[in-house]
């Protein structure tokens, strides 16, 4: 199979990802792309705690992820790739142009952001970055769980 979902979610590994998406996709590996987490054993242990033993968790920096992406995409298993913010998504797509889609699954309130959807809050700069990704041919939609509608980027930015 391949990486079935490329997701931006500031909670990274949590119930919606592992259960909500992981079960219907029959996901057996998760790639967490985050420069900080990839350098912290403690953080990695914390994220592994939320994942059942049959799902492998791989931690990678943006640079390493861009290098290993072809391997994960050619994997016979189904995987999910996670990033925690829009800047990381932009950085990854810049280094790995084969990334053709991103699901915005959860970007929550913070000073300077305003509500675009119930589960998506963005600054104007972040909204512009998502539109730029889309303009470069990356399919950007917002969808928290598989049963919800995939909202096109033009409707929430």
């Amino acid at each position, binding site marked *: 199979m391949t990486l079935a979902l490329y997701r931006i979610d500031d909670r990274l590994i949590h*119930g919606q990802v592992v259960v909500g998406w992981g079960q219907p996709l029959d996901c057996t590996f998760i790639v967490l792309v985050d420069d900080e987490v990839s350098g912290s054993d403690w953080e990695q242990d914390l994220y592994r705690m939320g994942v059942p033993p049959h799902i492998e968790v791989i931690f990678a920096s943006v640079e390493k992820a861009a290098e290993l992406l072809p391997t994960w995409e050619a994997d016979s298993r189904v995987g999910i790739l996670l990033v925690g913010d829009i800047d990381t998504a932009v950085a990854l797509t810049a280094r790995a142009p084969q990334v053709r889609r991103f699901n915005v699954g959860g*970007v929550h*309130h913070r000073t300077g952001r305003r509500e675009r959807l119930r589960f998506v809050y963005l600054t104007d700069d972040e909204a512009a970055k998502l539109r730029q990704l889309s303009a470069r041919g990356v399919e950007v939609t917002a969808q928290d769980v598989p049963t919800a509608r995939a909202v096109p980027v033009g409707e929430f930015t």
Partner: protein
Amino acid sequence: MSSSPLRGVIVSHAAVAQALVAAVTAITGIEGALTPVSNEGCGTEALAERLREAVGSGPAVLFVDLPGGSCLTSSARYAKQHADVAVVTGVNLAMLLDFVFHRDIAPAEAARRAVDAGGKAIRVTAA
């Protein structure tokens, strides 16, 4: 014995925490020992802020619903920065009922006690 009674903070998805606090109060009549925190609509920073407000100063036990996910990661990060805070996962009503009557012990001991009380409540009953 601890200098001040332990505070219990329940950290959950949706309204599980609020419901558990209401149930404990309904059964025991004890109010103020437990504070609910929901992760509803929260990113990492917002949930950390909710935790800070709920715990306040002094010792506490954080009762988290699942052994993974945003409730646990935020709680574990908080506990890492506060020596007088312990974290228990898999919160259930039985452990909370025991906890509210035993709040004059250290957080780590209260956490172990909660695991014991909560675990004993999980069983298969005779048909």
